[in-house]
């Protein structure tokens, strides 16, 4: 039963983060866009993590009395994706700060950009 609860939780979490991420990425101010990119990244990473199936109470490392193990590969993949995503977001933050300094506005289209 608690297994089902966890799947629901992860699925709705991924959905909510992806939805919020898409909404924020489509905003016209760089700060929202950064937050959106981060949320979208979290959603994608959680999704990738869940692709190895969610499991409860399984042995993480080899042991003699383990009946089954969780799939280790998505964990390795998601670790790589997290590191890459982190670097990318850091770069985006610096770029947007630079854009704010150079263009004098935090609008994604620069001065004269329409919309909020």
């Amino acid at each position, binding site marked *: 039963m608690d297994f089902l609860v966890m799947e629901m939780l992860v699925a709705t979490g991924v959905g909510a983060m992806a939805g919020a*991420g898409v909404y924020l*990425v489509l905003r016209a101010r*760089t700060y929202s*866009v950064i937050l959106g*990119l981060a949320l*979208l*990244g979290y*959603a*994608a*990473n959680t*999704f*990738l993590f*869940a*692709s*190895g*199936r969610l499991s409860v109470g399984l042995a993480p490392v080899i042991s003699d009395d383990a009946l089954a193990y969780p*799939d280790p*590969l*998505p964990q390795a*993949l998601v670790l*790589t*994706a997290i590191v*890459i*995503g982190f*670097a*990318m*977001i850091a*770069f*985006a933050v610096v*770029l*947007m700060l*630079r*854009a704010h300094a*150079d*263009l004098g506005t935090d609008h*994604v*289209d*620069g001065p004269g950009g329409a919309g909020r």
Partner: protein
Amino acid sequence: MNHWITLPTLIPAFTAVVLLLGARLELATQRSISVLSTLALIGVSFALVWQAASGDYVAYELGNWPAPFGIVLVLDRLSALMVLLTALVGLPALLYAVHGWDTKGKNFHALFQFQLMGLNGAFLTGDIFNLFVFFEILLIASYGLILHGGGERRVRAGMHYVVFNLTGSAFFVVALGVIYGAFGTLNMADLALRVPQADPTQEAILRAGALLLLVVFSVKAALLPLYFWLPRAYGSASAPVAALFAIMTKVGVYSILRVYTLVFPGTVPMLDGLPAKILFPIALVTLAIAMIGVVGARSFRRVVAYLVIASVGTLLAVIALFSQEALAAALYYMVHSTLIVAALFLLTELIAEQRGVRDDVLEPSTPVAQPAVLGSLFFVGAVAVAGMPPLSGFLGKIFMLQSSLGTEQLPWLFAVVLGGGLLGFIAMGRAGSVLFWKTEGETASSPASGAAILPVVLLLLLVGTLSFLAEPISAYTNAAAEQLMEPEPYIRAVLDQGGEAP
């Protein structure tokens, strides 16, 4: 033991690290390290093409972990060709950058080498997750390069480019999750075995995975409606960077070619040829809109940027036929379009510099200082890019149109490709007459040095070589296409290593 295949990624990786550690070295030293490494890359790529031309596959298991558990690098004719093309575009771009652009920002050479590393890795890997990693390497290097030189225009265009590609990366991760969740592997050869045996209940998820990947690759390849970032980004990037980026959209084309011939070919019953059905109309519309952009652009850099999109549209429309002749023709045209677009980006800047304040805007300006030299180069470039005889653009288009004979897509392909060619011809004629003939006043600029013109000449010579050696080169692309249409040997080469050392 055959470790050659690792060199196209290792050489630029080590060079980049050396350049980062030696960031305080004299500029001349940095330049020679960078140029020497790119020269070595050309040598290695020629060796790889020579090896691949025999038709053998090389599957290299990194760290000796057997496939499908470890990561494999795979060399076939297509990947060898792409690696060679990268090096051949990289060297002239670098030689041009050495002529002054690399002083306008820090770490240009290190970023350039990282970019080459990412490109080569993406072409050689046999694992989709590894493809994602190399995509990210080439992207983060390209973020740095596209901003190289600074300035408002670049920052604004770079911001769009970065946000767009970061979103694309998130989709890539989701696509990988879908595919891994359904098939439990990300090795392309292993996937190729498992996809046709998929359970009927997996039909929806299989389609979702296959088409999500198509979206991701279309972002890289700049297909409609995902191309809007490109004209501004390429149009405002510095000339050597824009020239190198001529190969960036081809990474998307390469990935589509690889994944939809190997992993999700049209023969998979559950896909029912869906990728080709989607790709063909979208690619044609991309080509049509890009040619309108070419005619309508108000500056010459934008004209060339739209030509990049047009070449991608042409290529993918032909690739969507998924026949051996079509793929062979597309590969020939891919080499041509990459080289010629790179040459035009470099040439544009030479012209723009000599025109003075009007830069590359297509309005009357002071005459260039070297009308004969630049005009001739422009003429050759225009003939090649518009697809007029005798150069390779013409041959490539002939091959492509021939390959569509007898297919039901023929009328559409002929109409759009030939109509687009006409528009391209008009646009190049108009641009040339404005740039060189509609002049006012006296020239105020000094002529460019031979060293600055040399890279353009090099690229145009390569286009010439492609035209004069059309027979052996098209024989090679034909053999490469044959390999793509027959994936079984590829799969066997990767998976049946029988425990022996690579």
